[in-house]
């Protein structure tokens, strides 16, 4: 193992799942080439890694698998720039690199013993999926109270992790609320925007923490719903994104005030964000 933090860990693309009908969001499963790297890759939900493709560059992406899923890492990636476009053109069996785990985690210790409300919109559901799978794992489920999930996408074809959503739907220890802005002929589920669904589901703020990720417009309209429900800013967490290069707080571009999103984040409570400059 390299002590040099800039050297990527070699991985193989083990599995590719096209998540959406527009085909621009895929989940990549990576298998470690070296057993030692696998053993040393200790992470928790909320962390990210730099997906590293020599000749193209690196892209910081949240880890979508849960540490309870052994032997591999998963990342759900939208095709957007140079690195992610190259990734989308890859086939199973291709070798590339992963640099991480990087950043802080969802506040797992703080979440223990509390009721958890997970709110996700669009494909910003990746590290939330990691968190849900972590919490509902047999080894961990008893450590958390009620788990309520609100997850929305624009249309049914844009919902990610559909197979997993179907499994979660069947569970009695997790209240899943999936919604789409507008359904199609086959859609039998909820219709409506995430903030409206949150208002409708109305999770109690009693001993509860909300973990919210989504597009800025969704966040903006969802937060007032949670304030009305009595959630304090200490009990609402989100994850920030910024342009990054090094991922370890040195290259200087992802700061919000004196915090680096890569090293001090990406997870912040609203109370913490209130203390930072409004520059993100």
């Amino acid at each position, binding site marked *: 193992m*390299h*002590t*040099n*933090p*800039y*050297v*990527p860990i*070699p991985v*193989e693309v083990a599995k590719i799942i096209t998540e959406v009908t527009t085909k621009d969001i895929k989940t990549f499963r990576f298998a470690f080439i070296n057993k030692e790297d696998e053993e040393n890759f200790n992470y928790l939900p909320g962390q990210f890694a730099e997906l590293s*493709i*020599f*000749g*193209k*560059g*690196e892209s910081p992406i949240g880890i979508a698998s849960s540490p309870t899923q052994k032997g591999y890492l998963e990342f759900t990636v939208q095709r*957007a*720039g140079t690195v*992610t476009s190259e990734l989308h053109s*890859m086939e199973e*069996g*291709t*070798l*590339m*690199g992963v640099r991480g785990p990087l950043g802080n985690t969802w506040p797992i210790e703080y979440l223990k013993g509390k009721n958890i409300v997970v709110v996700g919109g669009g494909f910003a559901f990746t590290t939330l999926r990691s968190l849900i799978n972590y919490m509902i794992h047999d080894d961990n489920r008893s450590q958390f109270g009620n788990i309520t999930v609100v997850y929305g996408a624009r249309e049914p074809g844009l919902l990610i992790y559909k197979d997993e959503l179907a499994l979660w739907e069947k569970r009695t220890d997790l209240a899943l609320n999936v919604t789409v802005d507008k359904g199609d002929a086959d859609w039998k589920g909820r219709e409506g925007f995430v903030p409206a669904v949150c208002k409708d589901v109305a999770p109690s703020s009693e001993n509860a923490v909300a973990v919210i990720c989504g597009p800025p417009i969704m966040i903006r309209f969802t937060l007032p719903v949670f304030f009305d429900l009595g959630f304090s800013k200490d009990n609402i967490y989100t994850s920030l*994104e*910024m*342009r990054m*290069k*090094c991922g*370890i*707080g*040195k*290259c*200087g*571009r992802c*700061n*919000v*005030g*004196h915090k680096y999103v890569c*090293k001090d984040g990406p997870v912040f409570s609203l109370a913490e964000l209130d203390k930072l*400059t*409004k*520059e*993100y």
Partner: protein
Amino acid sequence: MEKKVIKKDALAGIVKKLAGQMPVYAPVQDQDNVLFKILEQGMEPMLDFGNTRNAPKNCFFPQAETMLKYFRTERGRELAGVVEGAPEAVLFGVRPCDARSFILLDYVFDDPKYKDTYYMERRRKTAIVTLACVHPPSTTCFCTSVGGHPMSSEGADIVLADLGDRYLAESLTDKGAAILKKFGDLANADDAALAKKKELSEKSEKEIKSIIPGNDIKPWLDANFDNPFWDTIHKSCLACGTCTYLCPTCHCFDITDEVKRDGGRRIRSWDSCMSWLFTQETSGHNPRTSQKERWRQRLLHKFRYFVDNYHAIACVGCGRCVQYCPVNIDIRKIVTDISKL
């Protein structure tokens, strides 16, 4: 540690000889500029100069460097090797402000959690020989306002002071003592030499006339992220990045991949917060939309955020950004103006 004296006319020869044994970075004349460069065979360092045009940070953190190499295979692209390792070296003739910059850069690159391998290897293996400023080199020098001193030994392994007829050489670390031995047989410093240095030090400090309230503006900066004052400082800025490239404490960098037929290399190069591209995201969103936000970032990074994180201002008062800004933006004036708000 040891205190020696060196005859005035012997120093250049000593450094030239040292450069035959190990890499020595030193100030040399390059056309109109004095630059830090590796002394080549037979070259002597410049001893009579104000300050170098470039900060010596490039010795540990080069403007561009290869981080690793890769090659193409049938299964993708694989790591060919990591470019690590540095020889023992000497960085000679560093002004006290620039020597101090390494202490500030260490906060970033020698972070307890993530050590920057490339910077740290060179840093550990290089002895820094400071050439104290018995006269402040420029009217733009303001080291005393940001925690420095023209005769300071902070950050140095050896500090040299020009006493007029001879140099006083003091080693401050084991690394410095080892290099001072290589200087050859030197006479021990007498009390007169030490007294002379003290006298020069007091005189030199008084010669620095450029004083700014560097430590006083933090409370205002903490409270005024959205103040209209920020609309007034950036208007003439060309976003050329000269200030950030010449700054001894600016450490922001980019990582890019170079592609050749069978492989290539990953390169780190200096970047600048003065460029819009610095924070431009793939989605099109940019948290710093205009030069106003970029200038505010530069100033807040140095005088607020770095202080929050490391309890030090990320400015050593070398004055390069003031001297070489093509549109005469003067950070001293900005800080002074803020102190009056």
